[in-house]
């Protein structure tokens, strides 16, 4: 018998938890690649500091190479050092023990640093003009002039700087994802895809367009994420700039009204959110180390539900208001939307809070595009995550690593398919499940999409009805279902 006297059952596992175990072994020596990588990071940072302060090599190719070039090379070497030579498989040892990945001091510092960067990027120009501040971004921008000249035949501005850093982050951390998930083809293809679209369509092409005096345009961003693409004045400017501009207008309409519904019907939200979108791309690459920070409690679910749909309504009202010229309020409305949603929410909070709230803060709580895709996914897409019979043993890896904070386990342990508006189809839950329980699939009929609803329309009405009562999914076993959402079809007991 397990002797109660022997067991210290006063141990408070809730409060004290289980910290990183120590062993009496020397921590493994830094691999030569990692050591070199760190050295390159230090040199690269020095390169930036020297150019920004003293101005050596400022605005030359050598300058770019000795700063960003070294930083990227350093990071790549570190990732190689960490992942090469390990066995292909899930690499989450120690994830919960690292300060920087768990809102420790380093995590907070990093979060604040990224936030500060966004604040400077978005707002410093105004401050500088009105308060007569030193031109903080001038030299960092100037550093990239040779590249900007090459691509867009013009000097770099702060948006070029932003686009450049963003693309480098996606590619370098994308490389990390490729190494980390090298056993998983779904992850590899998806990562290559976001790297390709970010580099080709969100960085290279817009700059080349500029070089050929065409309007700047991102073919991978659509209304309502890139809301101004359906604003009347934007459409007018595009149309007036010739055949290419007209094609862009056509593309924007096609993407929003035809491609999005069709592709989402066929593949689910993921075709965009984790294969194409730049915001998703950054979340899946740079954000990967923090995906476990997304809260999967019920409270977050309630908040998310309200915020994301509110923003969808806000942007729809704005767009309609602009088209029908509904009054002068639209101008200030537009400005506030750009400020609060476009800058603060999607940028400052969306990326700055990666280390604190997980990698998909914007996608989960804010993005109106995700809201539309979600409604489509919930109501008429063929996509769902299927559960493999009764194999689930409730370990919770899937829920922990779901960046959208979905309680995947709550479905898996009851043998239910997962049809959730917010699921971006990243496939990480399926990858980390140690029992092979979860699978992303396209291709069932709408009838099993929403517990027996026979048509998309019925599914839609049921979906709306269900979303107002908030089904409690964080329950484990048959018998714990909420009224009206019961999965256990049993006869009544004797009284």
């Amino acid at each position, binding site marked *: 018998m397990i002797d109660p006297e022997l067991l210290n059952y006063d141990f408070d596992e*809730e409060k004290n938890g289980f910290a990183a175990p120590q062993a*009496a072994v020397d921590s*493994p020596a830094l691999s030569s690649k990692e050591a070199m990588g760190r050295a390159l990071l230090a040199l690269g940072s020095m390169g930036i500091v020297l150019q920004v302060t003293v101005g050596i090599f400022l605005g030359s190719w050598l300058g770019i190479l000795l700063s960003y070039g070294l930083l990227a090379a350093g990071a790549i070497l570190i990732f190689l050092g960490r992942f090469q030579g390990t066995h292909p498989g899930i690499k989450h040892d120690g*994830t919960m023990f690292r300060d920087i990945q768990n809102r420790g001091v380093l995590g907070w510092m990093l979060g604040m640093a990224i936030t500060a960067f966004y604040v400077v990027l978005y707002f410093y120009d105004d401050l500088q003009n009105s308060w007569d501040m030193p031109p903080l971004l001038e030299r960092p921008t100037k550093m990239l002039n040779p590249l900007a000249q090459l691509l867009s035949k013009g000097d770099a501005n702060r948006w070029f700087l932003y686009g450049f850093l963003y693309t480098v982050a996606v590619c370098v951390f994308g490389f990390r994802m490729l190494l980390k998930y090298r056993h998983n083809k779904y992850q590899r293809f998806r990562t290559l895809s976001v790297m390709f679209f970010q580099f080709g369509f969100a960085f290279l092409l817009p700059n080349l367009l500029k070089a050929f005096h065409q309007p700047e345009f991102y073919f991978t961003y659509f209304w309502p994420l890139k809301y101004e693409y359906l604003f009347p004045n934007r459409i007018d400017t595009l149309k007036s700039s010739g055949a290419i501009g007209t094609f862009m207008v056509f593309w924007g309409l096609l993407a929003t009204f035809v491609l999005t519904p069709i592709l989402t019907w066929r593949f689910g939200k993921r075709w965009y959110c984790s294969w194409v979108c730049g915001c998703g791309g950054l979340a899946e690459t740079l954000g990967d180390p923090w995906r476990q920070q997304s809260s999967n409690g019920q409270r977050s679910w309630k908040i998310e539900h309200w915020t994301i749909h509110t923003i969808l309504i806000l942007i729809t009202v704005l767009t309609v208001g602009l088209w029908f010229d509904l009054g002068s309020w639209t101008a200030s409305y537009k400005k506030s939307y750009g400020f609060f949603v476009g800058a603060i929410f999607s940028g400052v909070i969306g990326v700055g809070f990666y280390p604190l709230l997980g990698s998909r803060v914007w996608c989960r709580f804010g993005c109106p595009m995700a809201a539309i895709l979600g409604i489509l996914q919930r109501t008429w897409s063929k996509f769902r995550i299927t559960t*493999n019979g009764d194999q689930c043993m409730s*370990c919770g890896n899937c829920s922990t690593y779901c960046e959208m904070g979905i309680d995947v386990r709550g479905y898996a342990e009851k043998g239910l398919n997962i049809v959730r508006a917010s699921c971006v189809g990243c496939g990480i839950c399926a990858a980390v499940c140690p*029992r*092979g329980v979860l699978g992303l699939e396209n291709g069932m009929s709408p009838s099993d999409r929403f517990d027996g609803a026979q048509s998309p329309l019925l599914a839609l009405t049921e979906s709306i009805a269900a979303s107002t009562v908030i089904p409690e999914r964080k329950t484990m076993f048959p*018998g714990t279902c909420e009224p009206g959402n019961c999965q256990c079809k049993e006869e009544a007991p004797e009284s």
Partner: protein
Amino acid sequence: MHVVIIGNGAAGVTAAFRIRQHQPDWQITMISGESKYHYSRPALMYIYMGHMPYQDTKPIEDHVWSDKKIELLRDWVVDIDTQGKKLKLHRRGAMDFDRLIISTGSKPNKFGWPGQDLQGVQGLWGLYDLKLLQENAARTKTAVIVGGGLIGIEMAEMLHSQGIHVIFLVREKSYWNHILPPEESALINQIIVEQGIDLRLETELKEIIDNGQGQVGGIVTTSGEEITCQLVGLTAGVSPNCDMVKETSIATKRGILVDQSLQTSAPDVWAAGDCAEIEMPEGKRNQINQVWYTAKMQGEIAGDNVAGMKRQYEPPLWYNSAKFFDLEYHTYGQVNRDLNQELNLVWQHPREPKILRIVHNRAMETIGIQSMGIRLRHRVCEKWINEKQTPGWVLEHLAEANFDPEFYQRHEDEIRSYLGKQIQ
């Protein structure tokens, strides 16, 4: 009506929720000494390796317990009085019950090895062992794991992830070969060695040596070899945890004896999960099931019966899954190492760690399907076995059973052409 449930594992918790579903007004008390809330025992290793915080291994949000009015009590039951319907608790003293469910799980086996009570010798069973392992690992450079089963390999992986040198003693000729057929077993041997574990096959523990301070200093094997180590993991299987029950009037054998409605020999007392031994009709062998899903199923049946329904436990078609380091394993139906070789169709990938096995009987009915490195669909395999499909039919439809993630390399054609020849 006051229902008391001993143990908050998968069995006890499922039972509690079932009773609450049927009987909104009954008083339900769940007692466990191990943890305040129910957590997933199979996730212990992920807590230790830092994949998940303890909180994430709890399948049920804390507020649900009070929402459902299930009272949780942290205590140990030390005696049961079935006549007077009273429990004796270690801290609180007596407690009355009207109906009782015993779901005390299992306990690790010990074989009376000399030195097995030294500091640094331990098993892996619960949260308490994780804490102990942290303390023991802190002075460990080399660890010896004894016992070649599923928990042994988990423990090896846990300690290995910390950089500890792990020596893995397996009594058999090959890892887990009393369960696994030779090909699968050999593949796992290979995986273990590739990971950098020092695998010693056909090696048994004779005694554990004291380092002079009441701690582990090393071990001696039955062949007389001495190995210096600071930690010994004993994972020689588990058996039903019913020592406390044995001292009561409730009938026990290896486990707590119950009929198919999971009722014990005592009135108003049921047992479910790892601790139960189910007597089957018609001279079939008694069932002791010690996996997660059977605990859940038995909890469901016991809960329903306690709440006043009449339900019988029918063991489902056997299935299970596991992960050996990075190698996933699924098994459905009867895959028995003793089966005649000619009744086994085995395909193995020439380079990658992948195996598929189809087992049939002389009447050419498929009775088992098993895979390594390939995910199989539970419902499909179960259906085929229940329908007694021929191996040829299974090969023909193999693609329907695949559950690998998208874009993964598929092998159905190779498997079909390789195994197809063998059944002609």
